[in-house]
């Protein structure tokens, strides 16, 4: 273990701003991308379903 306390860990030896800006923005981007991909997947299925319903209703 490299840190004596949790606040010590957060302080990052005085480089807290740089380290946490790097890790924070990376985490944010990863979370955003995962959310985007999940949404993309759900939308693709929903759209395919709508298209199919349109086809079924329009054909006798």
């Amino acid at each position, binding site marked *: 273990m490299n*840190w004596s306390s949790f606040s010590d860990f957060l302080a990052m030896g005085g480089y807290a701003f*740089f380290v946490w800006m790097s890790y924070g923005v990376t985490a944010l981007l990863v979370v955003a991308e995962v959310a985007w*991909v999940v949404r993309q*997947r759900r939308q693709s299925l929903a759209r395919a379903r709508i298209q199919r319903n349109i086809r079924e209703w329009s054909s006798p």
Partner: protein
Amino acid sequence: MAIHWFKYASPASFYGLAGRLAPWFAAAAAVATLVGLYIGLVLAPTDFQQGDSYRIIYIHVPAAWIGMFTYLVMAGWAAAGVVFNTRLSGMMVQALAPTGAMFTFVALWTGAFWGRPTWGAYWVWDARLTSTLILFFLYIGYIALRASIDDPRRADRAGAVLTLVGVVNIPIIYFSVKWWNTLHQGASVKPGSSSMATVMLAGMLVMAFAAWMYTIAVSLVRVRAIIVEREQHSAWVGELLDARAPDDAPGTSGGVAGSKGEKAR
């Protein structure tokens, strides 16, 4: 063997394969991220020269590697698309690009926040940073080209040509930027170039592995969405929709549920 591979080159069968594989890659990414962060942020000692600012290395270097590597993989798919004329190839290139661009951006961003304490400036025209910036431009070019072509088949083929032209140019760009950099005697300090402790190297490699697995997981889920979108009129998508519960409960698909584990990051 060849027959086996070409079977999965059809979007319909790749859809199933990707769905089965994605959760495993997502799980591997989540586990590796946790292990890598534990090694990098908790176990690894403070660097005697740079203090704790060096800990940015655990995302900066893996992001730069994966950003570069993803472009090469894209070019590989693009070449396969040109040679074998498979529809899946273009879809894979399309699915990989956003994640590659994201990692390239992360490499630039963390490079800036590492550069400030190390070089005293957020941006220096260091050869590696500059090449990464140009790589980011190449990703933006691909995404912009795709976005302005409505016909997906034309977008696939145009994107393949652009990606291949880009990948041929990457070594030239890298060499020219390096040459330019040495002539102008820019910042030649290489943080972390001194002999690295084994723990640090291990943390970096584990994080690179995590980023790699993450890229595979995300692009597999994304390619599934692209496949459904493009093949919505085909019979197999209709069967797929029939097989699923009528109300599409979120998280029912393995790929989606698995990649949620990434939020631990």
